[in-house]
């Protein structure tokens, strides 16, 4: 069984945990650096990126997650995507820089501009449709040459990967569709077998 840590300082960790459980794997909620040691992969959930950032620094999880991500897979959704990005446009907000993308926070506006729409997703060579839930979502404004886009809403990349780092600007955990989480679990398995590695 795979153990997936879900950063639970704040945010929608509970929904990610439900999804991992539904897929027959073991989720554990991470609030201390110590707890990270048992994990094969880590999800940084949606929430408030400024809050997550402050709490990660305060509770020694900033460096711990950086160390964790050197060999192991990390999946950041929404606020999590912001936290792992190379840079955040228009602010001095710090980020972990685990994946070579630039992100703009609240790029669609406030909560009244949040929306659900069909998105195009390509996880195993074929293009498919999926429901995309966007809540005060960020936008990926630039992807580096080593980053592979995996899903799109209109012309925007909304899911991408580099090595073992996966990021999404939307919330698959708020739907019944588990394809993105299954994809992340496959990355974790590949990593355990030494196939998927991070370049950072």
């Amino acid at each position, binding site marked *: 069984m795979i153990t997936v840590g879900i950063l*639970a*300082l*704040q*945010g*929608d*960790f*509970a*929904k990610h945990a439900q999804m991992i459980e539904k897929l027959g794997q073991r989720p554990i909620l991470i*609030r201390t650096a110590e707890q990270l040691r048992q994990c094969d992969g880590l999800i940084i959930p*949606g*929430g*408030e990126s*400024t*809050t997550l950032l*402050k*709490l990660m620094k*305060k*509770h020694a999880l900033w460096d711990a997650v950086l160390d964790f991500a050197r060999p192991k897979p990390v999946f950041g959704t*929404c*606020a999590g995507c912001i936290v792992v990005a190379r840079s955040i446009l228009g*602010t001095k907000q710090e980020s972990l820089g685990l994946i070579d993308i630039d992100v703009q*926070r*609240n790029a669609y*506006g*406030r*909560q*009244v501009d*949040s*929306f*659900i729409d069909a998105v195009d997703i390509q996880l195993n060579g074929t293009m498919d449709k999926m429901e995309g*839930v966007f*809540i*005060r979502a960020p936008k990926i404004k630039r992807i580096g040459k080593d980053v592979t886009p995996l899903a799109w809403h209109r012309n925007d990349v909304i899911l991408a990967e580099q090595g073992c780092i996966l990021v999404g600007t939307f*919330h698959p955990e*708020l739907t019944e569709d588990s394809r993105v989480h299954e994809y992340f679990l496959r990355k974790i398995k590949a990593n355990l077998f030494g196939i998927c590695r991070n370049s950072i």
Partner: protein
Amino acid sequence: MQDAKAMKLKIGLAEMLKGGVIMDVTTAEQAKIAEDAGAVAVMALERIPADIRAFGGVARMSDPTVIKAIQQAVSIPVMAKCRIGHFAEAQLLEALGVDFIDESEVLTPADEEYHVNKWEFKVPFVCGCRNLGEALRRIAEGAALIRTKGEAGSGNIVEAVRHMRAVQSGIKRLTVLGDEELVTEAKNLGAPVEIVREVKKLGKLPVPNFSAGGVATPADASLMMQLGAETVFVGSGIFKSADPAKRAKAIVSATTHYMDFDLIARVSEGLGDAMVGIEIEKIPAAERMAERGW
């Protein structure tokens, strides 16, 4: 179907706020202090509940100037309160682009029979409750988030505890009832049977359940989280204390790590005076905010 999709977005935002602290603020400076302390959202108010209590008179929706200044000061979600049943105030707040509306007993009610029909709005609503029936009625009206009321501006946790325990024991009770008992139970709760069935099935409310009204210390926050709150609203407790920035940070830490008692003990040191607080019996019945709402 449209309703279901809209509800998913509304509840979705509430999910993002879990495990955090939502702080009442009255100025851009206070909003910055809250954000820097790690608040997940702020509630933009003209007066915090303790001052509303002291000031007396009719308490209404905040001046839009106050809300706009706070929206400009922070990047975290900004909530604001409308009076119970005052759907025009809610329409204004939606037009201002607030991220969540609190249809709140802290303000003077505008309608003594009906609450706002929250399904008509794109912006999500949070509503207060004292027990399971009240929570389920608000959910039936379209609330995407429930908070137990407590007694706002009292600095006294006893009502928050009473209301959270009432909701939790109401839920536990439903889970052991037979299906044939649910219609009568729905009648007794004054809530739609469909939602009663759903709660029985889930063993929890179909929307997140936060706590409000009376949190003044890190230990208060931990207490409410252990009793089943998924996030804590702090009103007067922070900005009516001696050192708001320090206390705000301490309450955030105690909420995230609500079972780490060494940590909570550590952050509780040297916070200076907490807000003074009032015994509930000393508040005349007519001035108890929790009694408002039906």
